[in-house]
């Protein structure tokens, strides 16, 4: 049995109501099936799913450290090869584990070409430790270590382009996906698993607690990220962008105004200059990936 009947990522874990990462975990395992070994990095997902003596995972699962899931996955992949076993290996990590502290292990594992899939659930900050900025935090987001203040508009740097970095390692398949479109997410996970070599899937996973919105709005927020062009859902095969989700774009402020982390752009007074900079990021995304649906006049 798979899917709704008996999920491989079981209910009863301790994620917040409206947690996108938990939804992603369930979708990932729906797509991957039982013959999968999961290698989790330290982080929210690891903590909320495996407080000893309980576990939410009905597939073999291992957690070692924060920054070594790619290296642990390398070893597992090598061991399976030596033993002639056919299980698939998925390394799972948040954006802190993936973009920042685990980057060395990730780069090494991709360069060596192990047969595994790395899936990053990207909630754009260190949520497990209390919403500190990471290399995946977007421009102007207020976090506890990049707080908006009298002389700061929040995070000063744009998000690191990790998919491009991993594609540059020669990864045969790199994709971005979002919990807003679960069938698409599952399709991409399946495709990554069916592609030989190291593949990467980056899943946009809004965090209601860290971003500051009500848990019932998670899917709506995730959808707005796509619809404004701030998040682009695409696939790269052998370094070339092969598929992109097109949208009829909305202004970025429809996305920003829903979240506490961008509240300083609207209060105490609206900051048109900063909102325009973020709009420019979306515009560049739209141009780079060609996401705009051209309507016939």
């Amino acid at each position, binding site marked *: 049995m798979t899917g709704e009947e008996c999920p491989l990522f079981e209910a009863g874990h301790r994620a917040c109501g409206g947690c996108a990462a938990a939804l992603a975990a369930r979708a990932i395992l729906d797509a991957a099936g*039982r*013959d*999968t*070994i999961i*290698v*989790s990095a330290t982080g929210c997902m*690891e*903590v909320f799913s*495996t*407080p*000893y*003596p309980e*576990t939410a*995972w*009905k*597939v*073999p*699962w*291992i*957690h*070692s*450290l924060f*920054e*070594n899931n*790619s*290296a*642990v*996955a*390398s*070893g*597992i992949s*090598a*061991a*399976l*090869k*030596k*033993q002639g076993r056919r*299980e698939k290996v998925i390394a799972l990590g948040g954006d802190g584990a993936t973009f920042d502290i685990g980057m*060395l*292990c990730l*780069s*090494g*594992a991709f*360069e*060596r070409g192990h047969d595994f899939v790395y899936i990053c659930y990207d909630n754009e900050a260190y949520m497990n430790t209390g919403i500190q900025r990471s290399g995946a935090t977007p421009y102007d987001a207020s976090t506890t270590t990049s707080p908006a203040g009298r002389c700061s508009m929040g995070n000063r740097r744009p998000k690191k382009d990790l998919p491009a970095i991993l594609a540059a390692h020669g990864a045969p398949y790199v994709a971005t996906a979002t919990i807003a479109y679960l069938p698409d997410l599952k399709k991409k996970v399946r495709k990554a698993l069916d592609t030989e070599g190291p593949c990467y899937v980056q899943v946009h996973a809004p965090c209601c607690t860290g971003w500051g919105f009500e848990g019932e709005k998670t899917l709506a927020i995730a959808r707005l990220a796509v619809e404004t062009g701030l998040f682009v859902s695409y696939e790269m095969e052998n370094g070339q962008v092969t598929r992109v989700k097109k949208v009829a774009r909305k202004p970025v402020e429809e996305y920003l105004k829903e979240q506490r982390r961008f509240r300083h752009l609207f209060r105490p007074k609206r900051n048109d200059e900063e909102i325009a900079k973020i709009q420019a990021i979306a515009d560049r995304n739209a141009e780079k990936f060609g996401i705009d649906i051209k309507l016939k006049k």
Partner: protein
Amino acid sequence: MMEIMEGSHAVAHAVRMCRPDVIAAYPITPQTHIVEALAEMVANCTLDSEYITVESEFSALSACLGASAAGSRVYSATTSQGLALMFEVCFNTAGMRLPVVMSIVNRALGAPLSIWNDQQDSISLRDAGWLQFYAEDNQEATDLHYIAYRVAEDRRVLLPAFVCFDGFILSHTYEPVEMLAQDQVDGYLPRYQPVIKLDSTDPVSLGLFASPDYYMEFRYQIDRALKDSGKVIREAGRLFGEMFGRDYGSPVEEYRMDDADCAIVAMGSICGTIKDAIDEMREEGRRAGLLRIRTFRPFPGEEVRKALSGVSSVAVLDKNISLGSKGAVALEVRDALYGSGVPVHGYIIALGGRDVAKKDVRNVVEMAMAGKGDIFYGLRREVLE
């Protein structure tokens, strides 16, 4: 068969005969000859292992951890800075009860940078939960790898093990070594049968986090397993002796200790020089002896106390220092002898490759007999001025 071999190559051949499924290693002086030799064996199909050329020591041990959790026998080798980079994974490997075996080609830790020998690297990981063996010569460095796998993988133990031998002094030195044949090793070392492993037909979760309600019990069990491994080491060492004639049943070696007045305590290759110095002193009628520690973890406190309780003075030679305190071996020996009234004098010696000659051993014995200790031995005063 007796062969004249470089220490690193002898160890590499021993590792080959242990049939590791997965090897993950990163090159670092003076460990390189081992991992190069293993790579060559894999390239020539004389060793059937998956060899992962990782991008750091941190990943080397992490990959070993993963492969071990998937049910494979694994091997790595490192030293000094490489071992320091593995610090976090070392604690994790022991905590997850994975029987990884790793050669430590002992080398000093920076700063200042030094590629030469002392034992600061592995000693600094003494609290990590790994078994620690120290070899005196290349024969022992080789044999201890078979023993380490057998003990580490024993269901009563399930802990990782360091096999430590001195960088350059042993690793790059040619000595006669009696190499076992593959069928002999196969007869001694059974195939690894993991108790649990990552397996989709019987899924388990490994590496869960523990709340304050559970953490202490986990740590207690690791400590108990490490302490109890002393018995398994004795069994495995004795069996090795029965099968191949070289007995490793005791975690310590007593050399001319029967009527010794002053006992030296040390670990590793320095013990060869100490034995020669003791022979000379004995000829002069001085009753010196050596207690060599082969197993530093678990620490053989009872054996040490038994061996040293009759002497009038103990001189411990430490190739390491717990900065701000004392040498690690001296601290252990003092603890073992607590309440016995036997004076224990510590000497920090041979750090960063400083050579030790027989005369230095004689000087140490004289100082110990005179009650002078807890010093750095052999400092060049002109450099300090």
